[in-house]
């Protein structure tokens, strides 16, 4: 029998009797393993802090999302949103699950190509595409989603100069009843700008309009908005067929499905207020079916879902550096993962669990990161049991954006591992070190402090 864990005493208000309006005392559940691999073991081998990604969860999410859409609409294609998490291993899992690549920059494009994705399976989004990037995308038959007229003109100019054909789509923005309305990307639907762009593309003999794209927002809480968006794009597709006898191959509804993370301002937990993928899928398919496309005209539905597929497959393990009492008596812990690794803590109340069993008493705690900056606060207030220095906590739902928006600031970026389906653990991104950091730097001769 192992020795029982010591937990230092805490003083809490005694609540007697039945439940009151505040509910019972929160008790913290713990998470000591990820897909069967002990947190303790992971840290032992790969250090702390440590990002852990579950291959099983990634695949399960993708398969479930595919099943949900595919049973509602016959032609469905997912495109993995690189910006959400472009670690090679993560992208590869999605590509193995038949996802295309959705990229918004030249380097993401190159990454996708290096992973083996062929041009025609790359959706090239974003407002900033250089001439070189456009040229390459055209040559490789990528699907270029045009964001503005200047880009359109550049493409036309390039195709004429280089005698190339380009497969393009336009991004359309529209009012779907969401505030704030996203109108900075693409061409507006309501004021006819989108139609102007379509006409211009149809008129250009080297351009082929293959798709229509919209991205109505992010972390969407309304499924209905997608129905409106689907109908609007479908209507455009029908009109294009009518007026120009051109069948649109696909309608791309972008991403934006919310994940299980709770936003800072939300009162209720995400699980209770965020629409399920089924609801998004119901809205989109019912919207598309309203247009009664014939079998030949029926466009493929492309989804660039990122967050909802990857968020809950990512975990951040961190260790307690110190316990503190703040001036107002609140308890605080300092952990070894700061906001430089957890950018999303600026908008989410992450779910955080201790990595070991605890007593049943919790205390409201503020969690600070290790950075010597005031902003480095992981969570303002969370009910946690007493933790000892060196003990581990697991931060949930960090698969999306954290591993792309993280930065080397005061501390460097740690190891990222993937727990594979068979239970093995693979290092998928090595921790940065000082050599990596300084490799890019050059010190002018004059500033040298020591002999070479």
């Amino acid at each position, binding site marked *: 029998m192992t020795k029982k864990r010591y937990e230092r005493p805490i003083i809490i208000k005694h609540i007697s009797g039945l439940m009151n309006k505040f509910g019972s005392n929160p008790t913290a559940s713990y998470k000591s393993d990820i897909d069967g691999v002990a947190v303790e073991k992971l840290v032992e081998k790969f250090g702390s802090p440590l990002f852990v990604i579950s291959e099983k969860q990634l695949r*399960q999410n993708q*398969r*479930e999302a595919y*099943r*949900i859409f*595919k*049973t*509602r*609409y*016959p032609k469905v294609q997912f495109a993995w949103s690189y910006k959400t998490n472009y670690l090679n291993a993560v992208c590869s899992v999605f*590509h193995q699950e038949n996802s295309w690549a959705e990229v918004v920059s030249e380097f993401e494009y190159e990454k996708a190509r290096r*992973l*083996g*994705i*062929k041009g025609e*399976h790359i959706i090239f989004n974003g407002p900033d595409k250089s001439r070189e990037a456009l040229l390459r995308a055209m040559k490789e038959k990528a699907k270029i989603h045009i964001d503005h007229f200047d880009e359109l003109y550049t493409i036309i100019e390039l195709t004429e100069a280089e005698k190339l054909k380009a497969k393009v789509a336009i991004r359309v923005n529209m009012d779907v009843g969401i505030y704030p309305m996203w109108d900075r990307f693409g061409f507006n639907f309501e004021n006819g700008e989108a139609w102007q762009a379509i006409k211009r593309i149809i008129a250009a003999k080297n351009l082929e309009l293959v798709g229509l794209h919209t991205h109505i927002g992010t972390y969407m809480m309304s499924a209905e908005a997608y129905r409106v968006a689907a109908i609007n794009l479908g209507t455009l597709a029908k009109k294009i067929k009518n007026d120009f006898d051109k069948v649109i191959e696909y309608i791309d509804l972008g991403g934006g499905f919310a994940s299980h993370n709770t936003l800072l301002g939300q009162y209720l937990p995400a699980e209770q207020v965020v629409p399920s993928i089924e609801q998004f899928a*119901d809205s989109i*398919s019912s919207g598309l*079916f309203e247009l009664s496309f*014939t*079998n030949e005209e029926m466009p493929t539905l492309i989804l660039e879902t990122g967050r909802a597929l990857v968020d809950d497959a990512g975990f951040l393990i961190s260790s307690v550096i110190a316990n503190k009492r703040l001036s107002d008596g609140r308890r605080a812990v300092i952990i070894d993962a700061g906001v430089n690794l957890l950018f999303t803590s600026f908008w989410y109340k992450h779910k955080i669990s201790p990595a070991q069993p605890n007593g049943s008493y919790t205390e409201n705690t503020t969690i600070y990161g290790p950075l010597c900056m005031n902003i480095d606060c992981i969570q303002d207030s969370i009910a946690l049991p007493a933790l000892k220095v060196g003990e581990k906590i697991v931060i949930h739902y960090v698969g999306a954006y954290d591993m792309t928006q993280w930065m080397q600031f005061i501390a460097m970026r740690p190891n990222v591992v993937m727990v594979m389906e068979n239970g093995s653990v693979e290092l998928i991104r090595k921790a940065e070190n000082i050599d990596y950091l300084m490799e890019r730097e050059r010190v002018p001769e004059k500033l040298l402090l020591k002999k070479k």
Partner: protein
Amino acid sequence: MNFFLDSILFSYGQIFFSNRRWFGALALTATFVVPEIGSMSLLGVVISNLTALMLKYDRAKIRSGFYGFNGILFGAAVIFFYKLSFPLLLLIPLFIVITFLLASVLENYFAAVFNLPGLSIPFVIGLYVFMVFLTNYNFISVSSIKTYDVYFSIVPLWLQSYFKSLALILFQPSFISGVLISIALLFFSRTLFLLSIIAFASNVIFLNLILPQNSDSLLIITGFNSILTAFALGGSLIIPSRKSFMLAIFSVVLVIIFTGFFYKVLHGTLPVLVLPFNFIVLFTLYSLRFRQEQSDLVALYFTPGSPEENYYYHHNRQKRFERFKFYFPELPFFGEWFVSQGYEGEHTHKEEWKYALDFVIADEDGKQYKETGKELTDYYCYTIPVTSSMDGEVVKVIDGIIDNEVGKVNLEKNWGNTVIIKHGEGFYSSFSHLKEESIKVKVGDLVKKSDIVGLCGNSGRSPFPHIHFQFQAIDKLGDKTLQYPLAYFLQKTDLGLELKIFDIPEEGKSIRNIETHKSIKNAFSFSLGEKLRFKCRLKEKVFTEDWEVKVDIYNSLYLEADSGDCAFFYQTDKLFYFISYTGNKRSALYYFYLAAHQTPYCYHKNIYWKDRYSIVDLTGTRIRYLSEFFLLYKNFLTTEGKFSFGERFEDEDSFLIKNTINIQGKGLFKGFSRLFNTEIEINAEGTISRISYFETGNKTFEANSINK
């Protein structure tokens, strides 16, 4: 000249139901054991065929020997019975023409009216007329042909009798002709060879049992009639099988009885000849036609080859296409579903309703719901669209029945909300347990395949959400179910996705529809007049081969290589398959025929499917000459092709359809096994870019497409 030579050789072959030149040549040689008979029968066939040619009969029929063989028999028979003299020589050509005319009437009449072969009746009539006519003259003397059989007295008599029976088919008095014919038979068809021996043996036995007093005088005449009858009924005009073998033996009894009958009726005035054979074969074939089920003792329904070839052709066709039906229904939903209750299921698919299917959606772990499964909305399939399985007209809509809570059933309105769609006369499909107020169609609507009909619900006798799907013959709600396969679908197995063609989904399996892949469909969508060219390498030999897509008078499409080789194919909206191949087994078209035997227009990493081959279509199968001795009992060789796609990485543009053809011996031939591999490479634009063929792992053939 070639044409004429063919017409002669095939005429000789026809007598033994053979379509081989060399067989004809051997039979021709056999007749020259007695040169007078040989030359006269040759005269018979030459005159018959020349007459036919001059009168402009169908050249193909002339070439096949259709009009010639009666002439052979006539020429031979005359010399068999009469001594050749000058006046006789003048009469013979005249009567050969008469026999030809009789043949042209009878062969065609029997073919057109009864779909039966005319056999040798024209010859029998011609000869009778001739014989009776000759009684007007007195210059006739009986034949006195000498045979050299006496020098071979070492050969036992019973064996001589057997050979003589064979020889007499060609009116050869010498058993040596019979030896030649017997050898020819052995090489042409093991089945016929075996039948000739068995027929003769049973003839000896039955003759001694039935007509012991005549056993010596009738032995040869019943012998050759028995052999011919056994040929026809045992393998040549009926597909060989155990039953046909029994029929052949039984027909020997008939031969003896009818020979006895004709012998008495003709009373010595005319010879019995092949009358019993003709009579028995024709009436047996005709009477078999009236059976309710034609699944065994199948009469030939195609251009005949050897009995073995007929056997392979028939069984191959049966295994490959028997299930093919007129309607092409597909699964009535999008995406992947799960068969929760199949045909003859243990819950409700019983008795009149046993041919029904229940579908639900299950996740990776096989669960049908999330959370606790206590709410309808927990079920994955609840409110998921249900689609029409093929084009049709909505004939019945029942709506307004509320969805049950989970675990409850509505026995009063047990079918729940239902839509019935008519697809054709006597062919309806019915969906039940739809969600209340979810039906998207109304009576009279025309729906297309995969149009949404309604949403999956939980109305009627449905404890948890599912679709009940059945075919039925009328539009009545809950009418008895009709067994009908789905044209094509993919079924999940441990090995991947198995393509099923005209099959029934199995309970406990996940299934989905085929999705056509543009590139692959393009590659196999051959249109009339399309031309392809390949640069080929067969071992060391390099050559170019051209193909063209053509159509025959029956509207069947085929690929024809510049060498004249032909491969007939058929295509549906989702499937391509070859039906038959004729020609050289070393052409690109031949290898393509093997490699693309049956190909769906879809691509999946782990899809696989199977198909059968006819053993005669494959090379390196000489073992079959041995196994064919047992064909009347059983076919000991199986030939199967296993198809799949080659491993394909994302950055590859082309697709590879791989196929392993396995010839496997069973039973006695267990030790025999051969493997061939084929590959077809299809590029992203959807053209067939390469065809390869491997023998035991070594590439022996490769063809690369050249753009014209």
